């Protein structure tokens, strides 16, 4: 059997876990940069405050509820995986995927409404940032959902149970980003 590197003595943690945290670190810089740029623009342009009044706080709040609940199902999936229950872990991961799908559907409806009212990506700098930040986040939601489907498919057969924790960490970070996006785009008006 070929040896597979799955530990890192320097950091004292498995390769996959280290890799996910490196991904999280790089995403902090990406999203942090976008949010920092948004904050700079928001603080210096009063017109942005006027434009931000057109976002729907209740839709944003509902999406926050969806993501927080999906984070719960993701961590419960991790708990099941730690207990060796692959089928339960897979089921809970599928609940998390359901949350991702619901989030994207609600976001799609929201954007359809906003675009039909004339608030497009070229309407104003505020809306450019809005679609950029929320769009990059939504892409991460979609990617996370796809990966979770792959992991759920393996875990229900008892294969690579540790991957549940890894995708869980990624998913919680996606939720974390939205926790900051929500007040910036939907509450600070």
């Amino acid at each position, binding site marked *: 059997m070929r040896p597979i590197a799955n530990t890192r003595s320097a950091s*004292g*943690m498995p390769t996959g876990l280290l890799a996910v945290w490196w991904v999280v670190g790089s995403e902090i*810089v990406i999203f942090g940069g976008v949010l920092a740029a948004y904050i700079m623009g928001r603080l*210096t342009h*009063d017109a942005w405050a006027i434009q931000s009044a057109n976002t729907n706080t209740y839709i944003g709040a509902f999406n926050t509820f969806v993501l927080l609940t999906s984070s719960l199902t993701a961590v419960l999936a991790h*708990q099941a995986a730690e207990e060796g229950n692959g089928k339960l872990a897979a089921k809970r991961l599928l609940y998390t995927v359901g949350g991702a799908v619901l989030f994207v559907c609600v976001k799609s409806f929201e954007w359809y409404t906003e675009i039909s009212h004339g608030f497009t990506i*070229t309407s104003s700098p505020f809306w450019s940032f809005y679609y950029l930040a929320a769009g990059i986040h939504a892409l991460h939601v979609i990617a996370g959902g796809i990966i979770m489907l792959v992991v759920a498919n393996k875990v229900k057969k008892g294969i690579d149970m540790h991957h549940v924790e890894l995708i869980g960490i990624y998913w919680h970070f996606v939720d*974390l980003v939205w926790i900051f996006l*929500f007040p910036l785009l939907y509450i600070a008006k």
Partner: protein
Amino acid sequence: MSEDGHHTNYVKIWAILMVLLFVSIIGPEFGIRWLTLFTAFGIACIKAYMVATKFMHIDKMPSFVSYIVVTCLVFMLLFFSAVAPDVMNDTGSNWVKPTWVAGTENDWVTVGGHMEDAGHGAEASHGESH
């Protein structure tokens, strides 16, 4: 999951997050600026801390993980502090921001200590797609 074998009550953590979410939505309804800032962003920081510690278990990870996260946060703050003085000021020691950079026609630009409408500035570009 905790090392002493006692399972964290994740549903309880989720319920607390829901309460915090509700408070952050209700806070701005009072129309008090400091209250809005606290309930929106202060509670966001609290929620983020709870997700990071209770769900991601970052406090139980090796310290290398904290180093990664803190380093990346520092780089983000470095970006902000390096760019903000340029972006957020309209004038400096030897420069004045052109109006087409400063903002849209609806924004006011501070030039030489007095305010003027950006739309009537010397370098205002009409029809800018903003």
